């Protein structure tokens, strides 16, 4: 089979591209989390602000990825980063905001009000309440948001090849340019495999990180 031949002949390159792709997604999701989770927590204080922020993130996500990459080009070209990994990471960070902020906000809001009432009533400060109760209980849903963002970023990252970011999308891009089907397939399949593995891996992390008390609750 041509595909298998191709993969056999290009094992190293495939792995390097896969690594590059994973790096791209990893860095983006990390930055997105460091922005999105605190924002998600902060907006639980004010419902109208929350609505606006989540709407904004939603609008960003509705922009077709290739259009967003296109928009970045002239803007970032000013600072010499119109092409390559920088615009890709910026775009991926922007896309990931919605699942992360929305999930974080919902997760914290969904902590039962009786817990918040009991906690405040016994003298927990807002910060203590967050740290001891709300965040631990929100972690499973926040992680689900991260998982969502990761899988989505792996997909969109494939398109980033078109602005020179590298990654497994390169196979798809070059394969199409050269009409070389095995290369296209190699790109498509490896991106899909990467997405599935990432999804499974993060599900495992979700399960391990869920506070034991909550796992018992699910079992009931």
């Amino acid at each position: 089979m041509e595909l298998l031949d191709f993969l056999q002949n290009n094992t190293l390159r495939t792995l390097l591209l896969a690594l590059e792709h994973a790096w791209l997604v990893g860095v983006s999701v990390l930055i997105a989390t460091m922005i999105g989770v605190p924002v998600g927590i902060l907006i639980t204080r004010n419902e109208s602000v929350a609505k606006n922020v989540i709407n904004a993130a939603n609008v960003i996500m509705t922009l077709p990825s290739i259009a967003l990459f296109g928009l970045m080009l002239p803007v970032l070209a000013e600072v010499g980063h119109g092409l390559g990994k920088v615009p890709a990471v910026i775009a991926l960070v922007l896309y990931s905001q919605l699942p992360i902020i929305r999930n974080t906000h919902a997760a914290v809001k969904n902590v039962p009000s009786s817990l918040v009432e009991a906690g405040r009533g016994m003298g927990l400060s807002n910060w203590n309440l967050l740290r001891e109760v709300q965040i631990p209980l929100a972690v499973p849903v926040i992680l689900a948001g991260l998982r969502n963002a990761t899988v989505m970023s792996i997909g969109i990252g494939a398109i980033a090849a078109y602005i020179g970011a590298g990654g497994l999308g390169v196979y798809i891009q070059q394969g199409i340019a050269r009409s070389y089907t095995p290369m296209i397939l190699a790109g498509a399949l490896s991106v899909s495999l990467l997405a599935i593995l990432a999804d499974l891996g993060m599900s495992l992390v979700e399960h391990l990180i869920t506070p034991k008390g909550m796992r018992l609750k699910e079992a009931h």
Partner: protein
Amino acid sequence: MIEYKNVTKIFRTPGRTITAAQEISFTIETGNLVVFLGPSGCGKTTLLRMTNRLESLTSGTICVKGKNIMELEPVKLRQQMGYVIQQVGLFPNKTVAQNIAIVPRLLGWNKKHIEHRTEELLEMIRLDPGLFRDRYPAELSGGQQQRVGVARALASHPDILLMDEPFGSLDPISRAQIQDEFLNLQSQLGKTIAFVSHDILEAIKMADKIAVFDEGRLIQYDSPELILTRPAGSFVTGFIGEDRALNVLALMRADQAMRKAPENVVAGNTPASETLAFMEQRGFGFIFVLDDGRPAAFATPAMLKNAKSAVIDAAEDLPFVVKATDSLKHVLSSMLTHDMDTFCVVDNNGKFAGAISYREIHERFLNSYKESRDDEKRVPPVRPH
């Protein structure tokens, strides 16, 4: 210990103004358990939540241990008071021990001290520390969860407890059990407690004093006996219910009403003939027979007529006795159940302490209405038929 002075709370929302509390003034004395009683929406929960600043006051002051609550930071104020709510609110991501330890930990107690206190509290609420310390709330029954909730509230030795229908979510049997256990605990600890309830029976059982609220106003603030025997107006009368006579009886004990040295009592080894002669002489229709000081049987002249030996051999076993500490409500109920109108009363050791019949109950009940000063407030006593 907790003083409410002209406390007023008005909720203003677009379109509606709700007065949850109107010029409420009263004092909860140190060591007392005061029940805030009233129907839904009367403001009792709002008043409780104003006490620990979960709700702000529109006007008036609340002083806790002499200090205005506004002088303390809310978080610091709340750490000085235990708070127990109906849904319990145990943190599901923490073990029983971690739940109980949360306030001490935030106050900076050292580990050993916390462990010791946790164990002490688990034993106080009668949950085996070895078994329950590392369990999660999801693994506990409703009653167990609520007990842990109480332990959690007591952890840092607060002098004051605020409780909002704490036992309301339990089934009647568990609720009665936990009420008894809590009363027992309170008799040892002597905390100052504000306890919200909508259940008149719970209020009568638990309270040193009851504060009755209606639509934001304090209607009456008295002991359970006075609330029942001298209700202040039609609202309280209606709220305490039609069976207030029975509820008054629930507050009195058998040993407060019984005849302490009735004469129709005889030792079991007395000859039957002698007993019969005694009964005929004094005109007794029946006599109680004791065995080693304990009520064992009863006898009528008919039973003893041809009896040869000791009276206890001819007498009929007593099916039921009541304890000196039983409530008059229980005694009356037992009279109906067992179809008897006189019982022997026994002390803690099972020894004969007195006799009680319907007449004594009725007299005791009427006496509780005797010193009525204000005729308008007095509820007419039950008339004999």
